[in-house]
């Protein structure tokens, strides 16, 4: 993989120029008490003081609300205004951790399963992902158990690794990344050959996700196991909403007078009404069954049907969970039980 060097000053110039050229630049920003991905208008808004952001980078391609099209009703007639694909901006997403970057792979596998969700794919196509290797981790991180690593390039177009002098090692991963580097070639200099590995956080691999994959199908019928595993879970949407690979959504209409739009918005398999039929019948009527769906989807259905694992080990769900459902622990319980 081609490597270059980007000094911290050049990094500032790069971002400033991108903003100047009307790219939508999205970066981790400290907003009030937390750090999240937000659109920035100046380099100084960026922070690097985070393990991972609260929400995942998926919002760039799969925002929490997406207007699918507009409509108007007059008398008996309905007219529709199709989604304006031209309105999707060219974006640069920076500060994306390797786990998050890899999450796009899983997400894309869902949005491209047979029928292509062009809104999603166009958003992603128009986004250049500049990853940032992790130099620190916390108790929630487990990327190394799910085939990732703190310096993995998979999913990023360019991966930056911060060196002790504050400058960055640049790894050019994709053609899109190469194009961006070429467009601003004067900012990138020759690679100094610094050892990247030594700069990375050490994340212990406490389990191997393949063992979860191998075991989980045989656990489906074990109701008692899932009930016990999910006793703490109070059934909210937090874990799914912050997860880089969760794609579940609802479709809703919003209107004022005769005008309105149809919206695709996040939903979660943890919510009790998610699968409720109008008749009152609910195929997943208790939290154990809903928690099972969450884990089975990630570690059985997605691997089986989409050939990808539905978890990149970012630990976001566990950080966001109001009752500390730590997904890595649950994975280990599956292996052990």
């Amino acid at each position: 993989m081609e490597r270059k060097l980007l000094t911290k000053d050049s990094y500032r110039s790069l971002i400033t120029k991108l903003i100047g050229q009307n790219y939508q630049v999205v970066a981790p920003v400290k907003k009030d008490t937390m750090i999240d991905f937000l659109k920035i208008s100046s380099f100084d808004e960026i922070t690097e003081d985070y393990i991972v952001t609260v929400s995942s980078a998926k919002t760039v391609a799969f925002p929490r609300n997406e207007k699918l099209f507009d409509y108007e009703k007059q008398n008996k007639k309905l007219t529709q205004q199709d989604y304006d694909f031209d309105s999707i901006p060219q974006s640069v997403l920076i500060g994306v951790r390797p786990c998050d970057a890899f999450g796009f792979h899983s997400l894309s596998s869902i949005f491209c399963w047979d029928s292509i969700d062009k809104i999603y794919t166009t958003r992603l196509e128009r986004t250049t992902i500049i990853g940032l290797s992790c130099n620190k981790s916390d108790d929630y991180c487990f990327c190394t158990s799910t085939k990732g690593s703190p310096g993995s390039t998979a999913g990023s177009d360019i991966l930056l690794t911060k060196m002790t002098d504050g400058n960055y090692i640049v790894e050019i991963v994709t053609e899109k990344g190469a194009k961006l580097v070429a467009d601003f070639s004067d900012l990138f200099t020759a690679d100094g050959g610094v050892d990247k590995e030594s700069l990375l956080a050490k994340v212990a691999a406490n389990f191997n996700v393949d063992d979860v994959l191998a075991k989980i199908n045989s656990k489906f019928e074990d109701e008692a196991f899932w009930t016990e595993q999910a006793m703490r879970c109070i059934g909210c949407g937090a874990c799914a909403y912050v997860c880089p690979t969760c794609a579940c959504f609802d479709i809703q209409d919003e209107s004022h007078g005769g005008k309105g739009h149809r919206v695709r918005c996040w939903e979660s398999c943890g919510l009790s009404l998610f699968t409720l039929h109008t008749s009152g019948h609910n195929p997943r009527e208790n939290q154990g069954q809903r928690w099972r769906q969450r884990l089975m989807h990630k570690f059985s259905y997605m691997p089986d049907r989409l050939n990808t694992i539905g978890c990149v080990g970012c630990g976001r769900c566990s950080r966001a969970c109001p009752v500390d459902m730590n997904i890595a622990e649950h994975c280990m319980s599956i292996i052990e039980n």
Partner: protein
Amino acid sequence: METQNIYLPYIMQIEKVSEDAPFVKTFRLKFINPEDAESFSFKTGQFGEYSVAGVGESTFCIASSPTRKGYIECTFRKAGRVTTALSDLEEGNTIGFRGPYGNVFPIDEWKGKNLLFIAGGIALPPMRSVIWNCLDLRENFKDITILYGAKSVADLVYKHELREWDERPDVKLVTTVDPGGETHDWTGEVGFVPTILDKMAPKAENTIAIVCGPPIMIKYTFPILEKCGFADEMVYTTLENRMKCGFGKCGRCNVGKTYVCKDGPVFSLKQLKQMPDEY
């Protein structure tokens, strides 16, 4: 309609509304755009998302046969938000439709076989599409038997078509209503569908059974078919799980790893038995 947007519906005009039973209506829908009518095609068993702008979308199967071109029909029961809004519409109104989605009844594989249709209540619509499809290709099949039951005489849907089927010499129609649901002039059977089926004791040899109905009816019908000697792969049914997208993305219709919107809604009993109890 030139679009890359998989969520954008076709605009359809309600050409005809018929009230089939209390709270049950059938719409005949025509494409507003002639090119859409031209390019649209579907197969029997498939479904779509019907929408009222400002209210939302709702999942129904296409109740008409693909052999009847130029329109599609849907039959729905007024149950919740969208179906209530749909019920309030009249001929001439326009609604949204996107589809077709899902798999199909494998009628090509059924050539030369006897067909036994067993339906209960509002579940006749998915069946109606395949019944008409097979009747329109009548020479492809041997005996065709239809057993249809509802709570009461009033709840029987498609009454005029039931009459039509009854009058056809090449169809054997048996209608039944639940005990207590009969009127004084009722000439059909009285009893639950599984009971009547048991009485009919259909021959399993070279016969495909297609079963659609409320879960409780399905539950009691399968054992009787089994008793009559129907192999699991000769019995078909449809599943209804809550849906939003219809194309395998919104994540709520799956039964284990099977996505009802993509792998279904049509399943053989053999497939169903391999699926976990999550429907």
